[in-house]
C-alpha cells in the first residue's frame, strides 16, 4: 500500500518541513509495504521536485496547472484525485495552517480517519494506530483509525529528516477536477525576510519580566547571533509590546525548536502548552518558584535584563574560539 504525501511549496521552493514530511511518509510506507508518492500543487522547479527523491519519494506528481493560492475546496479535490491516482491508503500532510485547513475536508471526502498533530510513526498500520499529544501536550493518546484510509498530519520539527538517496520521477499531474474557487484571495502580505517562528531551530522568547517593550534589543540580538527567531508570552502580545504572531502558547503558536530560551517568562500552564515540545528549554527568571523551572532543562534565577548581555558576550566568546 502506497503513501501519498502533500508537499506544500513556498514561492516555488520546499523547506525543511517538506523534507520532514517526505522522510516521515517513507517510514510509514516501510510499514505499509509500498512506495511514497509526493504531490506538489502550483509551479515548482523540476530539480526541486526530483530532489524529494533524496528523502524517500519515488514519484512526484506535479499539478503545476493548478492555482497557487489556497482554496480549500479546490485543493481538497486535487489531493483526493491524487490519492485515487496512486491508490494510496495513507495521506501525510503537515500540521500547519494549510494542513489544518485541508485534512478535515479530505477526511470527509475520502472517508479517512484523521489523526492530527502526530509526532511519531504509527505503531501499527492495519488498523493504523498512532500516538498523538492530547490536552495541549499534558498527555498522549493512542488513536485508532477505523476507516480503510487514514490521514496523518505531522507536527513540525517532530521528525528527523532522513536522506535515503535516490531521485524521484517527476510526472505532470492533471487532476481533472473543477478548479472554480469558492474563495477569492484579494491580497497577500508576507512577513519580510525573517525566519519563521515555527521553522526556527532556536527561539529566544521574552515575557513580562523584560519590563518594557523598549528592552527587547538584547532578545533580538541573541536571536540574530544564534540564527534563531524571537517569540513572546501572551501578556506581552496582549499588551502590544510585541506582535501577535510572536505569541507562543496554547492559543498562540505551538513550537518545537531544538532550543527555547525563555527570559522573564513565569511559565503559566498555557504558555508551557506551546513550548513543552522543545528539545531543550532554558529559563531565566527572578522567581525561583516560577513554574517555568519545572519545564526547563537549565535555569538561572536572576534578572533577565542582566543575564542577557552576559549571555550574548559569552556566546560570542565561545563562537570566536
Amino acid at each position, binding site marked *: 500500500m502506497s503513501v501519498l504525501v502533500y508537499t506544500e511549496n513556498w514561492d516555488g521552493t520546499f523547506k525543511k518541513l517538506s523534507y520532514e514530511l517526505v522522510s516521515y511518509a517513507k517510514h510509514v510506507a516501510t510499514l505499509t509495504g509500498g512506495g511514497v508518492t509526493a504531490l506538489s500543487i502550483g509551479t515548482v522547479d523540476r530539480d526541486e521536485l526530483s530532489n524529494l527523491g533524496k528523502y524517500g519519494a519515488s514519484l512526484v506528481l506535479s499539478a503545476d496547472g493548478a492555482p497557487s*493560492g*489556497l482554496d*480549500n475546496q479546490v485543493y481538497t479535490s486535487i489531493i483526493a484525485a491524487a490519492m485515487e491516482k496512486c491508490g494510496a491508503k495513507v495521506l501525510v500532510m503537515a*500540521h*500547519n*495552517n494549510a494542513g*489544518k*485547513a*485541508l*485534512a*478535515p*475536508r*479530505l*477526511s*470527509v471526502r475520502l472517508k*479517512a*480517519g*484523521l489523526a*492530527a498533530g502526530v509526532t511519531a510513526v504509527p505503531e501499527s498500520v492495519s488498523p493504523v*494506530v498512532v500516538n498523538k499529544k*492530547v*490536552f*495541549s501536550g*499534558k*498527555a*498522549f*493518546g*493512542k488513536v*485508532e*483509525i*477505523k*476507516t480503510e484510509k487514514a490521514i496523518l498530519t505531522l507536527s513540525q520539527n517532530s521528525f528527523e529528516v532522513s536522506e535515503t538517496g535516490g531521485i524521484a520521477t517527476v510526472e505532470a499531474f492533471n487532476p481533472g477536477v473543477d478548479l472554480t474557487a*469558492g*474563495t477569492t484571495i484579494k*491580497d*497577500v*502580505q508576507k*512577513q519580510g525576510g525573517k525566519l*519563521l517562528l*515555527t521553522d526556527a531551530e*532556536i527561539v529566544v522568547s521574552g515575557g513580562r519580566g523584560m519590563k518594557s517593550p523598549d528592552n527587547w534589543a538584547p532578545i533580538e540580538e541573541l536571536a540574530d547571533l*544564534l540564527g534563531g527567531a524571537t517569540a513572546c508570552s501572551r501578556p506581552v502580545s496582549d499588551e502590544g509590546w510585541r506582535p501577535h504572531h510572536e505569541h507562543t502558547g496554547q*492559543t*498562540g503558536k505551538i513550537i518545537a525548536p531544538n*532550543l527555547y530560551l525563555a527570559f522573564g517568562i513565569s511559565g503559566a*500552564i498555557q504558555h508551557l502548552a506551546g513550548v513543552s515540545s522543545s528539545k*531543550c528549554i532554558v*529559563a531565566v527568571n527572578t522567581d525561583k518558584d516560577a513554574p517555568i*523551572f*519545572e*519545564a526547563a*532543562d*537549565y*535555569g*538561572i534565577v536572576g*534578572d533577565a535584563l542582566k*543575564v542577557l548581555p552576559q*549571555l550574548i558576550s*559569552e556566546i560570542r566568546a*565561545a563562537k570566536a574560539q
Partner: protein
Amino acid sequence: MRILVCISNVPDTTTKVKFSNGNTSFDDSGVQWIINPWDELALTRAMELKEDTSNTVSNVTVVTVGPVTAEPTLRKALAIGADDAIRVDAVSSDAFFVASQLAAVAAGGDFGVILCGIESSDYNGSAVGGMISEIMGIPSVSAVSGLSFEGDTAAITRDIDGGKEEVSVPAPFVAIVQKGIAKEPRIAAMRGIMMARKKPLQVVTAVDAETFTSYRAFAMPEPKAPCKMVDADNVKELVNLLQNEAKVL
C-alpha cells in the same frame, strides 16, 4: 444574517489531567468545564458583529454536542450574549461524528456563517470546522484572524505560514478562527446570567453518523529530569552546558 457558533465543552485549561478505566478514558471527576478558548473567541466576534448594526446580523445561535452536563457551558454562552442555544444530545466521541451532528443543525437553520475554533483544548483535533464545511459542500476558510461583512460577502484575514492573506467569500461558509479574531473574551455580567436563564435552549436528538477514530489508551508523558540550575554570576557555565552537554549551540 444568522450566525451559528459551534462550541466544544472542555475541561478548564488549568485542569490536572487524569485518566481512569485502565487509562482508557478521561477522568472528569472534579473537572471545571469551560467554553473551548478558541470557540469563546468565535462567540466574542459573533457578538461584536451583531452589535455593529452595519453587518445586519440578526441572530447568534450556539450549538454543542454533549450530554446534559454540557448545558451550563451553553448557558454561559447565552449569558455572554448568544440569542439561543442548541444541544445535540450525544457523547462527542469522534470528530466526524460531531461534525455530522453540527452540519445537520447548520443545514436546518439558514445560517450565513458557521464559526468554529481552530482546535479544542482537549483532544486537539483541529478537524470539526473543516469537516462541517465538507459535509455541507460549502467554502471554508481556516486560521481566520479577522472577519467582517460587506453585504452577504465576508472579508476575511487568514494567517498563512509567514504572513497573512485577505480573502473574500460569499455566505454561507465556515470560518475556522484563531487568536486575533476578537479582543478579550467577554465575561458574562450578572444581567446576562439572569437573562440567559430565560433564553431558549433546544435539545435535539443525534443523527446517525459513523465514527472514524477512537482512542485506545492514554498515557502521561515521562517525568522529565529536574532543571539544572546555574548561578546568575556564572553565565559562562550555562553556555558550556548548552554546548557540551545539551549540544544545542
